[in-house]
């Protein structure tokens, strides 16, 4: 099977089966989103400081998009952004 085909299958199964690790709910994710974003931009270990966040972001595209939007906005606000 080609690499592209393998990747397609892996992505598909990943989407269907979701993360295996314990994860936050969408509500918990939203509550932590601002802290997680600032930790990420500060280069801190955001995943260790907010357990369950990474797994949720892998399983929930909408929450992940919210995070990417916040990171992009904060980056554009920063002096180097």
């Amino acid at each position, binding site marked *: *099977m*080609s690499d592209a085909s393998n990747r397609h299958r892996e992505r598909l199964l990943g989407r*269907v089966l979701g993360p*295996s690790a314990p994860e936050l709910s969408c509500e918990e994710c939203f509550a932590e989103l601002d802290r997680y974003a600032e930790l990420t931009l500060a280069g801190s270990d955001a995943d260790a400081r907010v357990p369950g966040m990474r797994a949720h972001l892998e*399983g929930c595209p909408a929450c992940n998009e919210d995070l990417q939007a916040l990171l992009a906005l904060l980056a554009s606000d920063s002096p180097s952004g």
Partner: protein
Amino acid sequence: MATATMTPPTEMPQAQPRIASLDEESRTWLVRLRCSGPAQDAAVAELHALLLRAARFELNRRRGELAQLRGEERDDLAQQSADDALMAILAKLPDFRGESRFTTWAYKFALFEAGVKARRRAWQRREVPVEDKAWAALAEAGRSPHGRVEDSELISALRAEIEAALSERQRRVLVAVTLNGVPIDVLAERLGSTRGALYKTLHDARRKLRAGLEDRGFDIDGGGEEEI
């Protein structure tokens, strides 16, 4: 603007989340938003302007998926997002824990509102795809002239578990969101639900599928290259 109908807080909330430990800018925001009269009105107007800028930023980032909207329609969406975010923020002000800057905390409400509205607008006239498309994608993933037998078996088992182990609602949510790519906020609107409630349904469905596949002998995460 939403501020015209805003009811000013009449008393300080009981929980004062470590206000002394806040950065100066965040502390100033809280003090101004919690006072009354013209000073509070000015702070609310300033906050709305901040939220509007955030909403415009996000809708501009998503302009590709909103290509059908004229500039003024997109800006109207930004205004609605800022209005709704402002209402949410003022209602949740006592929940601000000071674990980020106040502006970062406020931004996420505007970005959330703008994101939800953008996804729903982009899908406004689109039907949620029927399940046939999803099964085709699943079948395609397991079919290859050079594919391994166990890949095909895994996909077949997955489909069997989806059909047999899930409730009708779990199957509908899982297929729409993970196989047909329907944004969860769009599905939530069509089903009269919320993102959080549908994600819980999706989460429960995924756990059932994982358990079912493991019962059938598939090592979903531990097999690395050997399995998925």
